[in-house]
């Protein structure tokens, strides 16, 4: 059932690409609408700055359209698009680093929306979320990309390897380091939260 749906979607995707190649704006639009949210989410996490993210996302789509003729439809369009997106991000970060030195190490994104989050979730959960995203921001680019693609975008190591253009073993090693780094940084927060939680429930002792 799911397989049939996937096949239909693949066929639909091929049609869209073929039509977009022939100059059909409607098809190009549909392709953008289907993929923009995922790509934008990924790029925001890579750049840690939403101001640049939309521009970079646009650049990635434009590059994809320029070379759409060379895309081979037996492959997944999303993987190809993310490969382009990742490259654009890396180049952007490199350019930025060349101009401003090392980029800021704090996550710009999580904070802006955390103000609203904190009213919805417990103090512990908000602190935890901040800690996690600030930790993610300290990872190297391939580590960060591997982590975000794996967890947020449901990609397996094989597909991540294609997006990052790295061997699968290297991706696994990036994931390993990323997980351990997050765990180390979470340890003290976890201790605090256990204590706070047990205090609230009258379990302290």
């Amino acid at each position, binding site marked *: 059932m799911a397989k049939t749906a996937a096949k239909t979607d693949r066929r639909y995707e091929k049609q869209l690409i073929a039509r977009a190649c022939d100059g059909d704006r409607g098809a190009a639009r549909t392709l953008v609408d289907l993929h923009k949210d995922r790509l934008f989410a990924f790029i925001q996490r890579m750049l840690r700055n939403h101001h640049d993210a939309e521009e970079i996302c646009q650049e990635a789509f434009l590059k994809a359209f320029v070379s759409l003729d060379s895309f081979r439809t037996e492959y997944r369009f999303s993987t190809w698009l993310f490969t382009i997106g990742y490259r654009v991000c890396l180049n952007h970060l490199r350019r930025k680093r060349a101009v401003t030195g090392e980029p800021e190490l704090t996550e710009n994104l999580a904070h802006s929306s955390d103000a609203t989050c904190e009213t919805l*979730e417990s103090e512990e959960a908000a602190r935890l979320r901040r800690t996690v995203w600030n930790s993610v921001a300290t990872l190297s680019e391939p580590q960060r990309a591997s982590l975000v693609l794996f967890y947020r975008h449901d990609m397996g190591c094989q597909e991540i390897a294609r997006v990052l253009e790295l061997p699968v073993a290297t991706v696994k090693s990036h994931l390993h380091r990323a997980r351990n780094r997050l765990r180390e940084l979470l340890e003290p927060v976890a201790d605090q939260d256990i204590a706070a939680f047990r205090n609230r429930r009258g379990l302290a002792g």
Partner: protein
Amino acid sequence: MHNTKTSVRMNCEQARQLFDAYLDGELNGSLATELGAHRIKCSDCRRHLALMEVSGHIVASDSGLNEMDERFTDRLIACVDEGPIQRQSWLYRHWRMTAGGLAAAAAITLVVLGVFGQRETRVAGEKNILIERPRGDGDSSPLLEGMPSYPGAADHDLTSGAWIDRARKNIETKRNSAASLQEALDQTANKWIDALEAAHDIDSIESTATEADHAPSSQPSQDDPSLPKR
């Protein structure tokens, strides 16, 4: 290293070597069972895994992102129409469409298109990144060489088409944002608290059990500085 004999109990070092495979969903059979057994026995490993799982869950349920401008697609399509490189290719394609129908013309078009496509890629590369490779810390596949536009394409997989489902779900999720965001946040918080509480409760049970029962032989041979001091 971890050629585990089923009769011998796994130690922490062996268990930790399996964490990634476990988290990647690649651990099956007797190793998975053994890791599960070790996890029940060993509070340090249980805590390690809980922290990794919780952080993975937070990344997965990412909610701290900004919404995209709703006119993004309009602006993008306008750029496609207006950009010098893009205009060339759209016009070209349009010409190809109107001239289509004759098999010979189509054949010539395909040849020309190939050349044209390559030139476009080079032009784009001057200002952009098509040709630049990401800074990798390993060798990229040799398959990628000599494929100027999107080398990774040579390597793409044919089997999975679930992406479009996920893309639609994502769009759907965004639409229901307010309600589902709160739900996701609550779930994250609950899972985290549950994981921590479970880890803590089992710790308490264990700490009241006899010291001998605490299986000191299953501790790592060297101290792991990242472990919490207890």
